[in-house]
Structures are given as C-alpha cells and as structure tokens.
C-alpha cells in the first residue's frame, strides 16, 4: 500500500471510530439546547459536579505526594525490590474498575475486615470516603509513571553538587529536584485529574448513587440515560460538559508535552 492509501485508511478509521461519533454527539446535544441546559443547571447535577471536583482535588493531592515519593524511592532509593515496586505501582492499570470497587466493598463493607467503621456509624461505603478511596486507587500510577523516567534522565549530578555545598536533603529536593521534574509532575496531575473526573465503574459500585449526595457527574450521566424515557437531552447535556472538560484536558496535554521533552 502506498502512502496515500495508508493515510486514507488511518483517517477513515479515526473518522468512523472517534470523529464521526463525537460530531454526532455534539449534533444531538444541539437538538434540544434548552433541555440540555436545564439538566446541567439542575441542583442535583450541580451537586454531582461539586462532588466530582472535591474527590478529584483530594485524589490529585494524595497521589501527587505519593507519586513523587514513590518515584524517588524507585529511582534514587537504595533498597532491594525497587524493580518490583516499579511494576507494582502500575497494577491498578490492569485491574477492572469493577474489581477495584468490589475490593473496597469487600474490605470496608459491613461484613469486611474493616467493617467496624461501617457498622458503627462511620460510613465509608455508600459515602464520600469510598468514592475518594476508589479514585485514589485507580489514579495511583499516573504521577509516578511520569516522574520516574524524568528523574532517571536528569541524573544525580546537580543534587550531589547541592549537597556538597551544604544543602540539606529537604533543600536539595525543593531547590533542585522538584524544579527539574515539575513538568512531569504537572503532566501526571493532568492525567490523574482526567481519570478521576471520568471514573465510572469503581465509583458506581461503592458510592450508592444517591442523588445530590453520593452521585458523581459520571453516575449522573448514567442515571439521566437510564431514566430518559425517550428524552436524551439531559444525558447529552451533562455529557457535553464532561466531554468539553476532556477536550480541555487534551489541550493542556498538548501545551505541556513539548516542555516535557525540552527540559
């Protein structure tokens, strides 16, 4: 096959699989803009977006700290099992979100090993803590995965120089290490946020899906679709907001990527 026919195949495939469906979705949303807008401004939708935002902020904060420390241990640490740790951090990527959610129920549910909390009024499952735990679980690898190769690349010369000149470990980290990995961290944060906002399977199992309370944005879309009774404007409207967020994330990724390779 020549260059032109390959280009045709590639673009045709993308057109049928991604561009066509996305264009149709935008078209469907514009068919009933009033209905879509009403669904987006519904108090329960607003509450769902707020919950998604809260959970995402917590997941991003926790996994940024964890990701950086974990990457430092993998690359700079002086212990055995670093290779194992490196592989283990990726594990959540190979687990079905359904299994992630289910495993949290098995652990924190009323009959689980840590069911004491659930039985004594400190609700974890069917409440915000479980949504946070699920989001942290599924987004665990992203920051670490981005920071590890960058840390390897920058080497230890500058850090050693700083320490020779009398900087403490803490100072070296803040003044030397962190500035050189910052774009990798930011890129990892963007990926973490995107996944956390979009998580469905794990959250659907643990959250209880209570309207206005434990219903996240993605669960709201599912509800709007299941109870559409022929009126799909609400589902498309809320999806449109999420899709717009995803496209914003994409743009951020494009802006950040060149800096990533420039260093």
């Amino acid at each position, binding site marked *: 096959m020549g260059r032109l026919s390959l280009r045709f195949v590639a673009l045709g495939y993308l057109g049928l*699989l991604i561009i066509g469906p996305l264009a149709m979705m935008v078209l469907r949303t514009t068919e009933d803009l009033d209905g879509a807008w009403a669904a987006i401004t519904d108090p329960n939708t607003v509450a769902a977006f707020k919950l998604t935002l809260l959970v995402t902020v917590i997941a991003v904060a926790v996994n940024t700290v964890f990701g950086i420390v974990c990457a430092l241990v993998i690359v700079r640490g002086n212990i055995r099992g670093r290779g194992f740790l490196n592989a283990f951090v990726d594990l959540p990527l190979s687990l079905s979100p359904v299994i992630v959610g289910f495993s949290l129920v098995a652990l924190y549910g009323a009959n689980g090993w840590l069911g004491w909390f659930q039985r004594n009024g400190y609700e974890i499952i069917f409440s915000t803590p479980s949504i946070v735990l699920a989001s942290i679980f599924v987004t665990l690898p992203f920051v670490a995965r981005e920071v590890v190769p960058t840390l390897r690349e920058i080497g230890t010369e500058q850090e050693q120089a700083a320490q020779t000149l009398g900087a403490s470990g803490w100072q070296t980290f803040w003044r030397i290490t962190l500035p050189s990995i910052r774009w990798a961290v930011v890129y990892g944060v963007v990926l973490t946020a995107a996944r956390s906002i979009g998580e469905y399977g794990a959250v659907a199992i643990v959250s209880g899906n209570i309207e206005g309370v434990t219903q996240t944005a993605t669960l709201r879309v599912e509800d709007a679709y299941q109870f559409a009774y022929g009126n799909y404007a609400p589902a498309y409207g809320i999806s449109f907001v999420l899709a717009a967020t995803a496209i914003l994330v994409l743009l951020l990724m494009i802006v950040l990527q060149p800096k990533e390779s420039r260093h």
Partner: protein
Amino acid sequence: MGFVTTFLFVIVVLPIAAIVWTSTGSGWSGFWEVVSSPQAVAALKLTMILSTLAVLTTAVFGTIIAWVLVRDSFRGKSVVNAIIDLPFALPTIVAGLVIMALYGPRTPIDVTIGSFQFDANLTFTRGAIYVALLFVALPFVVRTVQPVLIELDQELEDAAKSLGASNLATFRRVVLPGILPGILSGVAMAFARAVGEIGAIVLIAGNLPFKTEVASIHLFYRIEQDPEGSAAVAVVLLALSFTVLLGIGALRWLVTRHERG
C-alpha cells in the same frame, strides 16, 4: 520507603486481599460451582474473545495510524495526533454515549436500496461492545508505537526500497521487527483495559445474559446479592487476564532477545 509501602498496602493490597478472601467464603466447591455456572462461563468467554478481537484489530489499525502520524505529512496532522488521546481523556460513560450517537437507535448511517436495507444501529449487540472496546483501546497502541517509529531510522526503509523491496516487504523485514516490541507493549495495555472495561459498554450492550453480558457487567449486577460468588468470578477474571498479560510479556521477551545478546 515506609510511607510508600504502607500506602500501597492500605490502598491496593488490603482491598485485593479482601476480595480474594471473600471468594473462598463458600469453600472450594462453592467457588467452583459459581465459576463454572453457564452464565459466568459465557460472560468470561465473551470478555476474552471480544477483548482479543478488539485488541488485534487495534494492533493493525493503531500501527497504521502511528506510521501515518510519523512518516506522512498533511494539513491538520497535529489535530489528528491530538484526537488519538481523546478516548483516554473522555469519561468512559461519555464514550459509550458518543458511540451510541453514531451507532445507536437513531443512527444516520441508514441505507435502503430497493429491498436491501442496512443501518448501523448496533444497540444491544456484541458489535456494540466490540466498537466500544476499539474506542478505548486505540490510544494505547498508537502511543506506544509512535515513539518507536520516530526512533527507527527512516534511511533503513528508504535503503530497502531503493534496493527494490516492495512496500510490503519493507514493512515486514525492516519496520515490523523494529516496532514489534512496541506493538506488544501497547497490545498488553489495551488488553488489560478492554478486559476490565465497563463504562463505555454498560449503556449500549443491553447486558443480556449469554448474549451481550461481559464479565465486568456480570459482576457489576451481582455483587450485592452474591458477594462470595461474584468474588470468585472476579478472581477468575483476574487470573485469566494476568495469564494473557504474562503471555504477551513472554512474547515480547522473545522478540527482544537479540537486543539483550
């Protein structure tokens, strides 16, 4: 170090241990009874077959797309390049809705010529699941093959062609050996993702037992009524998926043997 292991233990290891423990709740016979039930077997089989088909398709088209993005040049290429990541950035439930917009009940692809009628409405069919899996799998293959192709010297390709090799021969003898490890890594990630996928599937599949019920959805609707049985199915799904991932890893090890000497 203590922080990292403690964190991983609490967030990942404990929950997974709890699910494995739950699966043993009704003994070995109970475990086997659930796992070998016709509906569970059908769901697990469907998951493995559809994931394999979708990932193989993605390996072919993903490689073509990566090649076009690296070696070809045309207007709007950077936009096309950006679109590749969309399935990754888009919430899966929205991905399902997006696919349904074109391949759902109101599909605009609807051709009637005389008595011949064709429309692209895939709702409640296995075809819908296949398309959803193609959608989520694509970035994994393209994004692992792309950097490898950039590294691969184009002069080698040009040399092969100037020595009279056909396009196909050049691809098979020069390009493919270089990018195969990349394809396999992408395939492994795409497979892991496809096996566990639920968000993109749940709305369009219809979840009909024996027909369009994949393992993740089978689990999804049973966890509350039958936690022990569901845990057993979950453990089998994990085992199956890790076996395939190990197999791909072994294959990758084989094809990169010469690099390690």
